[in-house]
C-alpha cells in the first residue's frame, strides 16, 4: 500500500515537473511514459465539440487509436456518468476540469492490478483530475489540443464566440449550471455567461441578431458591456443599460440582441430577472414545468437608451428546482415537414430528462441532441440551452465519485 502510494506520487510529480516546459503535443507521451513505470498504459481522449466522439491524443511510438463514441461504448459511459468504468484490464476515468467534462482516460492495467479496487479507482480519478487541469492550461499554449477536439474546421464566428464563453459546466456546493451551444463549428450570435460567486449567482443567455461573425461581434459587445458593469458593482438593470449603450455605439444599423439576465439569491430562493425580448425561461419542479417566467419584460438590448423597461420579474424558487433558459433556435428548429420543435416539446423533454438521473451536463447533451435530430439538415439558427439546478445532489453528480466524499464532509 505505502509502496503503491509512493509510485503514484512519483507519477504525479513527474507529470508536474515536466509540465513547466512542455508543448501541447507532449502531454500524452509524458503521461503515458510516467505511467509505464507502474506498468500502466495511458491514452487520453478529449471529447469533440459536438460531444459525439472521444478523440485520442497520439502517443509517440504507439499505433494511433480510434475515436470512441460517447453513446454505446465503455469510454462513453465514463464520460456520460462522470465515473470510472472498469472493463476488464482497461479502465476508463472521466477527465473534468472542475466539473467541465473534457474527455476520458483509458488505463491499461497490468493483469490482477484491480485487487485494491477502491484505492485504484481513487488514484485513476485523481490523475484524471490532474490531467483535466493541465489540458485546460495547455490549451492556451497552442492549437494541438484544440484541433483534437474538432471534427472539422471552425468558422471565424465560432472561433470568436468560444473564446468568450465560460466552461459548459460549473458547479459549487449547492447548485450546478450547464450549457450547450450548437452548431458548434459555425455558431455566431448566441452566447451565455454566468458567475458563481458568493450567494448570488448570475446567469445570462443572449441571441444577437444576424449571422456568423457579424452576430458574434454583437454578442461580444453585449458580454463586454454586461461584464464591465457587473464587475463595477452594477445590478442587472445597469448591466442591460450598458449593453444597450455599447450596442448603439458600435452598431448604428440596429444590431440588437435578445437576452435574459437573472440573479438567484441562494438564501431566499428569489430569482430576479430581466427579459429583453427573449423566449421566457421555464421553472421545472419535481419533474414538471410549473412556471413560465414571462415577467421583467423590456426592449431587446441595443434598441433604445431611453425607456427600455425597468421592471424586474421575480419568482421564488425551491431547493431542487431546475431553471431552463433557451434561445429561439431551440423552439424554432424545423423538421422536414416544417414543424417547429416548439416550447411544449422542449418542456416535455426537459421533464423526461430530469427523470434520467444523469448529471445535468449529460441531460443537456441529450436535450440538444433531440433538437438537432428534429432539425431537418443543418440548424438555420444558433441554438443555446442553459440549465441551472439548485441542489447539492445535482452538484455532486458532476463530480467524479471518489472526490464526492471530501465534498460532503465540508
Amino acid at each position: 500500500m505505502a509502496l503503491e502510494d509512493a509510485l503514484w506520487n512519483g507519477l504525479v510529480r513527474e507529470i508536474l515537473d515536466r509540465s513547466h516546459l512542455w508543448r501541447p503535443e507532449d502531454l500524452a507521451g509524458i503521461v503515458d511514459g510516467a505511467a509505464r513505470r507502474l506498468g500502466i498504459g495511458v491514452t487520453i481522449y478529449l471529447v469533440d465539440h459536438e460531444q459525439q466522439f472521444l478523440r485520442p491524443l497520439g502517443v509517440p511510438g504507439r499505433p494511433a487509436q480510434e475515436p470512441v463514441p460517447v453513446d454505446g461504448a465503455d469510454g462513453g459511459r465514463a464520460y456520460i456518468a462522470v465515473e470510472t468504468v472498469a472493463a476488464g484490464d482497461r479502465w476508463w476515468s472521466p477527465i473534468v476540469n472542475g466539473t467541465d467534462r473534457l474527455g476520458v482516460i483509458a488505463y491499461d492495467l497490468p493483469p490482477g492490478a484491480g485487487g485494491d479496487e477502491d484505492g485504484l479507482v481513487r488514484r485513476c480519478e485523481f490523475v484524471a483530475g490532474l490531467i483535466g487541469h493541465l489540458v485546460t492550461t495547455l490549451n492556451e499554449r497552442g492549437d494541438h489540443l484544440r484541433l483534437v477536439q474538432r471534427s472539422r474546421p471552425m468558422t471565424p464566428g465560432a472561433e470568436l464566440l468560444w473564446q468568450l464563453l465560460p466552461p459548459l459546466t460549473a458547479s459549487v456546493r449547492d447548485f450546478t449550471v450547464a450549457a450547450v451551444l450548437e452548431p458548434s463549428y459555425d455558431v455566431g450570435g448566441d452566447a451565455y455567461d454566468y458567475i458563481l460567486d458568493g450567494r448570488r449567482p448570475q446567469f445570462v443567455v443572449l441571441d444577437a441578431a444576424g449571422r456568423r461573425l457579424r452576430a458574434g461581434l454583437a454578442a461580444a459587445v453585449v458580454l463586454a458591456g454586461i461584464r464591465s458593469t457587473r464587475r463595477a458593482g452594477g445590478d442587472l438593470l445597469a448591466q442591460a443599460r450598458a449593453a444597450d449603450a455599447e450596442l448603439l455605439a458600435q452598431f448604428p444599423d440596429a444590431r440588437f440582441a435578445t437576452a435574459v439576465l437573472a440573479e438567484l439569491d441562494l438564501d431566499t430562493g428569489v430569482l430576479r430577472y430581466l427579459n429583453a425580448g427573449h423566449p421566457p425561461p421555464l421553472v421545472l419542479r419535481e419533474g414538471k414545468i410549473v412556471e413560465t417566467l414571462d415577467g421583467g419584460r423590456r426592449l431587446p438590448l441595443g434598441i433604445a437608451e431611453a425607456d427600455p423597461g425597468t421592471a424586474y420579474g421575480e419568482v421564488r424558487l425551491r431547493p431542487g428546482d431546475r431553471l431552463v433558459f433557451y434561445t429561439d433556435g431551440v423552439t424554432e428548429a424545423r423538421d422536414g415537414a416544417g414543424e417547429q420543435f416548439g416550447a411544449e416539446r422542449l418542456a416535455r423533454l426537459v421533464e423526461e430528462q430530469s427523470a434520467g438521473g444523469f448529471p445535468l451536463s449529460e441531460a443537456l447533451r441529450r436535450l440538444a441532441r433531440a433538437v438537432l435530430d428534429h432539425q431537418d439538415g443543418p440548424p438555420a439558427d444558433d441554438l443555446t440551452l442553459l440549465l441551472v439546478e439548485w441542489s447539492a445532489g445535482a452538484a455532486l453528480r458532476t463530480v467524479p465519485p471518489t472526490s464526492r466524499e471530501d465534498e460532503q464532509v465540508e
Partner: protein
Amino acid sequence: MTSEILSVSTREAADGVRVLALAGDVDHDSVPRVRDAVEAAWEDGRTRIVLDLTLVTFCDSAGLGLFVEAHRRAGAHGGWFRLAAPGGPVQYVLDATNLAHYLAVHPTVDDALTA
C-alpha cells in the same frame, strides 16, 4: 427549410406616402430587397413609409433589425415608418421581442395611412 421567395411592390398613397407591400418570407437572405425598396423611397424624398405585411409569412431577426433601423431613421428626419397588417407569425415575433410597442404597428394599411 424552404423559404417563400419575397416580392416587394411599391405604390404611392395620398399625401406622398410610399406603401411597400411585401409577400413571402422576410429573412436574412431576402431582407436586402426590402432595404433597397426603403432606400429607393428615401432617395425619392419619401420619408413617410408604410410597410404592408399582409402577405408576409415569416420574419426573422434580420427583418426586425431593418424595421428598427428604418423606424429610427425616419423618426430622426421628421418622417415615419409604419408597419401594417402583420399576420400571426409576424405579430408573434413582434410580441415575443417586445418590439410591438416600440415600432409603429397598425392593424390595417388604412389605419397606418390615417393614424
